[in-house]
């Protein structure tokens, strides 16, 4: 009987505990100050420090709320948009089309006026490429009112990195990295002969393939023709596009890729390069921070992808890394803008660049960043990004394009076959778009 009494007591205590616990937290305390949603886990510490400084200076509390991984963040923002519960400041992940929808649905403030105020003083501090991603021009295909809708807080670009020590081991001059495709192939073959895997990259995440391919597309056929292709005026079966596809066939047949690159996650690729198991990597400027942690002694340099043609300039994929948007419905819009202005001043940008090793979006803070980051930064003017082109390719075409390249690398299909397949998808998308109108 006593056992039973004890048991009952425990259950009762537990139940009342639950009820009390749930009851006391039912009313979520309304956050004072400005709330910022972001997904950048690795910057949480730096953000919190900045928030502290800001609170001391301006007496306004900034709550940086972190939601990760990015898939969960995307859904959180979408769900909040549906219920009109977005925070004062938030970031948007994904293509420009998604960004456009957020604007058209009336969630994002147009910051053009603030940017242009006082002779464009605020606007002037940014890399122009960083602003382009957040800008909608008049007559854009999404039907968005022209303007600037976001504040870039960092920039990024993707380049080719080479390991100087491995270069020397293979008998190559570590101060003369390849600048043309031919030189790259020659260097690759020498490295391979020395038993060193050549190029590693996270091509299992297909957007990295997309970057590599579009760089060469710009180099081979020029921006105009790429845009014309996206518009539907030039087919993917054009010889120039076949040439782009053939690059992948060539490096695969000559075995200039580290094994397993086609399905590799980029974090694995970074491990491999950091531990000197491959001589080249194709990776973004964020890698500086990654390599620094994994192998502080790693001796490497950053170069633009070796060009294959002299006809057109080589493009580098890049632009704004991450941007913040201001909620148009926020009651604290003025304060939010003021905070973002503060966040992008030189002092704060240098702090962010130093503590997170990302490229600052404020071009005046470049002088104080580490040299390897500067190697990335000096090519910012040559960057391009799907978000700054006047037209956007259909997502399904992009997918079949990149997956097709994977099949070329594995030797399953030829460049010609893939070109036909991609064009078939493109034709279908164009047709269904016409039907919609």
């Amino acid at each position: 009987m006593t056992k039973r009494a004890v048991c009952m007591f425990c259950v009762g205590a537990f139940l009342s505990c639950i009820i009390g616990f749930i009851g006391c937290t039912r009313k979520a305390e309304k956050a004072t100050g400005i709330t910022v949603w972001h997904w950048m886990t690795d910057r949480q510490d730096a953000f919190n420090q900045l928030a502290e400084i800001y609170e001391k200076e301006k007496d306004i509390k900034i709550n940086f709320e972190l939601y990760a991984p990015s898939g969960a963040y995307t859904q959180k923002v979408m769900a909040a948009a549906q219920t009109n519960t977005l925070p004062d400041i938030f970031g948007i992940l994904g293509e420009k089309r998604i960004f456009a929808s957020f604007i058209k649905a009336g969630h994002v403030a147009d910051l053009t006026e603030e940017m242009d105020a006082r002779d464009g003083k605020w606007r002037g501090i940014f890399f122009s490429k960083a602003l382009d991603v957040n800008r909608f021009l008049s007559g854009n295909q999404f039907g968005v009112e022209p303007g600037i809708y976001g504040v870039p807080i960092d920039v990024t670009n993707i380049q080719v990195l080479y390991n100087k020590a491995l270069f020397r081991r293979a008998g190559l001059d570590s101060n003369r990295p390849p600048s043309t495709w031919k030189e790259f192939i020659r260097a690759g073959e020498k490295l391979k002969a020395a038993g060193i895997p050549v190029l590693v990259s996270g091509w299992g995440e297909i957007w990295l393939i997309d970057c590599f391919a579009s760089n060469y597309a710009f180099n081979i056929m020029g921006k105009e023709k790429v845009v014309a292709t996206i518009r539907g005026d030039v087919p993917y079966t054009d010889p120039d596009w076949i040439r782009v596809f053939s690059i992948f066939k060539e490096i695969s047949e000559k075995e200039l890729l580290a094994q397993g690159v086609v399905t590799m996650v980029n974090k694995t690729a970074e491990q491999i390069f950091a531990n000197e198991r491959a001589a080249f990597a194709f990776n973004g400027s964020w890698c500086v921070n990654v390599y620094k942690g994994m192998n502080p002694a790693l001796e490497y340099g950053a170069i633009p992808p070796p060009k294959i043609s002299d006809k057109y300039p080589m493009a580098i994929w890049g632009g704004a890394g991450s941007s913040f948007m201001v909620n148009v419905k926020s009651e604290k819009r003025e304060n939010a803008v003021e905070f973002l202005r503060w966040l992008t001043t030189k002092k704060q940008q240098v702090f962010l660049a130093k503590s997170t090793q990302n490229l600052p979006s404020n071009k005046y803070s470049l002088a104080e960043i580490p040299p390897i980051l500067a190697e990335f930064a000096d090519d910012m003017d040559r960057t391009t990004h799907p978000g700054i082109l006047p037209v956007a390719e259909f997502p399904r075409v992009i997918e079949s394009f990149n997956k097709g390249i994977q099949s070329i690398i594995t030797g399953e299909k030829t460049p010609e076959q893939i070109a036909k397949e991609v064009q078939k998808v493109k034709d279908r998308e164009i047709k269904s778009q016409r039907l919609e109108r």
Partner: protein
Amino acid sequence: MKDSVLFYKIEKILGWIRDHFFLILVSLSCVFPLVWMLSSALKTQATVFSDMSLFPAHPQWGNFYLAWTKGGFGIYFFNSIFYTLTVVIGVVFIASLAAYAFARLEFPGKNIFFYLFLATLMIPLPGAFIALYVLLMKLHLVNTRLGYILIQINGGLALGIFLLKTFFERMPRDLEDAARIDGCGKFGIYWRVALPLAKPAIAVVVIFNALTVWNEYLLAMLLLSNKSLMPLQRGLMIFQGAHVTQYPLLMAGITITVIPIVLMYIVMQKYIIAGITAGAVTG
């Protein structure tokens, strides 16, 4: 005669070796990742993928302390234990009631209801995340413990009902009949006879649900915004950035989070085996 005894003995030993060889092989594959995780937790970011030894020369025990403080595990730990307990109790109680009805009681529409529950297991709900948020918003349950708990109880029900129903159906009916003759009501039979007999199956339901709740983070990210309400997995997010992953701290963090669930399993798996004897005593 002597030979055949010897032969029998040899055969027995050979069989024993064969069984254990197989079992140990499988066990090794299961234990290896755990050992790797532990040893990675004791390395530094620079050595985690370059030093492949399982016993690092300079173990960084401080990683565990760092992971605990940097991840802010204190409050998360408490939250996770609370969520796991409440969800598991809720699922076991509600699912076992329903499962017993589906297995033993008669009422119109029984099959339809059962397949309805089963169907919730089948359809992956891609658009449901946003719908769920909208729904909880209307119920004023966003950013509350209650909302997070109820959604998870609901999520565990279908599997629990299906599993327990299978086990209730397999139980011999005579014990229940005896109880009925003794004047036990329907609820009494369920509570005093069926539930104790189903201990192994309930242990399985507890193990499954506890693991799911313990590892849950997507819903937490969607529904909760107060840091003080977040579960343990939120602490781990700090170590795995979009670009930089702090592997040793992440491994240390995972090790910390995995210990309670392993302990829970060690306790619960006893009931899987002990079930039958306990049931016999009740009878």
